[in-house]
């Protein structure tokens, strides 16, 4: 099948977020494919490996150096990629990002689209769902199991939402977002990493998508970013395990008043 996977480049989850003058310092950050998007890539690869044939295309909106992250996805086995790379997309919020992704998908051919449940930078959990609405496609969110019907015109999904599990069906094409549990993503092989260098990545700008940058104005503005409030220093409880356990219960009750 022709599958498109939406991938976002985010700081490695190991990153300590440094803040200077109300902004996140991005120098020196190492970037990864957002972990939920990795599940989406893995699922797309598995679907085509099982069916034999087909194509997996990565679609990423990001600055110039997002190419490096796109190559990581190609190294996993995706066939090619589209890089939405234009300063006009740069300062967009989720509303703008979704509009640009939707405009790109309109130019592409696909049987369905996979994405992550959320990108682990701003934790918005909205871009993929917005794209579905903009393209008038159905969506299923937070999927941990995906089964295609024999005729590939529909799919049955198990979702994990708010601690519940439910089963949903959808017609295809649709946008399906991945939740942890969908699969175990592979590591890139050496051959994959070498091969990725030769795989095609096309760049599309606003003009290629027929988008007027003036229509790409954000609805939201991030005024500033601050570190989370510092926690007061804690105390270690003295004595052996039993003594400390009893003292803990007393403190939770009398000092912290949480039980």
């Amino acid at each position: 099948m022709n599958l498109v996977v939406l991938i976002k480049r985010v700081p490695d989850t190991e990153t300590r977020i440094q803040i200077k003058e109300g902004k996140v310092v991005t120098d020196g950050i190492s970037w990864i494919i957002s972990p939920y998007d990795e599940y989406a890539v893995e699922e797309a690869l598995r679907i085509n490996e099982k069916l034999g044939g087909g194509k997996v295309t990565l679609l990423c909106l990001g600055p110039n150096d997002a190419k490096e992250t796109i190559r990581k996805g190609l190294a996993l086995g995706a066939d090619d990629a589209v890089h939405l790379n234009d300063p006009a997309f740069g300062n967009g919020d989720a509303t703008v990002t979704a509009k640009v992704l939707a405009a790109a998908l309109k130019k592409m051919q696909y049987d369905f689209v996979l994405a992550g449940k959320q990108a682990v930078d701003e934790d918005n959990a909205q871009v993929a769902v917005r794209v579905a609405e903009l393209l008038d496609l159905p969506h299923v969110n937070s999927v941990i199991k995906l089964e295609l019907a024999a005729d590939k015109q529909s799919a049955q999904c198990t979702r994990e939402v708010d601690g519940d599990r439910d089963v949903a069906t959808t017609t295809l094409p649709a946008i399906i977002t991945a939740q942890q549990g969908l699969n175990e993503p592979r590591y890139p092989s050496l051959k994959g990493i070498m091969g990725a260098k030769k795989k095609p990545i096309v760049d599309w700008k606003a003009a290629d998508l027929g988008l007027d940058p003036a229509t790409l104005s954000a609805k939201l503005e991030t005024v500033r970013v601050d570190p989370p409030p510092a926690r007061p220093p804690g105390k270690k409880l003295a004595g052996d395990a039993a003594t400390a356990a009893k003292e803990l219960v007393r403190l939770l009750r009398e000092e912290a008043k949480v039980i």
Partner: protein
Amino acid sequence: MGNNILIVAEEREGTLRKVAYELVTVANAMARELGGAMEACVLGNGVAACADSLAQTGVTQVYCADSPALQHFAPEVFAATLADVIRQAAPAAILFGATGWGKELGARVAAKLDLGVVADCVAFQVEGGTLVFQRPIYAGKAIATVRAKALPVIASMRPNIFPPAPLGDARAPVQAVAVSAVAARSQVIEKVKKEAAAVDLAEAKVVVSGGRGAKSTEGFVPIHELAKILGAAVGASRAAVDAGWIDYSTQVGQTGKTVAPQLYIALGISGAIQHLAGMSSSKVIVAVNKDPDAPIFQAADYGIVADMFDVLPVLNEELKRVLSEK
């Protein structure tokens, strides 16, 4: 557009979720400052009682879409029906609970109406005629202040942050809303319930988590027991989840659940940055770890350097004793 605030109330099996009452508290403050009123909306099957409860919260109008077509979640049908309500109510802001349901429906409706969504808000201000919100990003490693460049805006508010509003004497009118006729190309067909006794992690007041130090599925038995005594939800580190000792839906952290309970107890968890991201805004944090240098102790209000399996039996007995005295 007016100055009203519209609450989208989430229900579960015919009962409003607690976060719906928390939204009333938020909407009340916003409406007062913007000089508008509060209205509320509920969608589902058999939700007349929910509409009735909402009508007693001080809102001036309840919109109620009650239909078998809304028995199970169908994003397109819910979004189209809600969009009709929003067009009619013409509010300055639309509030959802920042639950999976609220965030998903909010995103779909937002795209339909070309509105911005500020997700997972923990605080807000009315400033210069618009709304400004604080929201954790990078799973809590930083806090962003986000301003709506124009109203209306959609916001989802984190559960357990704002106090729930009480019911009053007034009774607002309930207007029945017709379900949109759009086709449900995707829809939930069946709910597979989790264990009845389990408490939802995201909403729990107390969370008790185990990590690699728990060593096995059996190692989680006293952790489950502790959770039961405290009425807590059980969480886990990724190491425990990856080892298969507990279901991955319990993972707390940057790629798991973000939790902010009154009390978080971490047992045999080292405190990796991805784990801390998901729980460090908890009110009180307790850590039990053999290693005095484990990073979790830097986040903990109370730390015990000891083997968790020496601590747990005494802790469980002592808690049972103390809680029965209440």
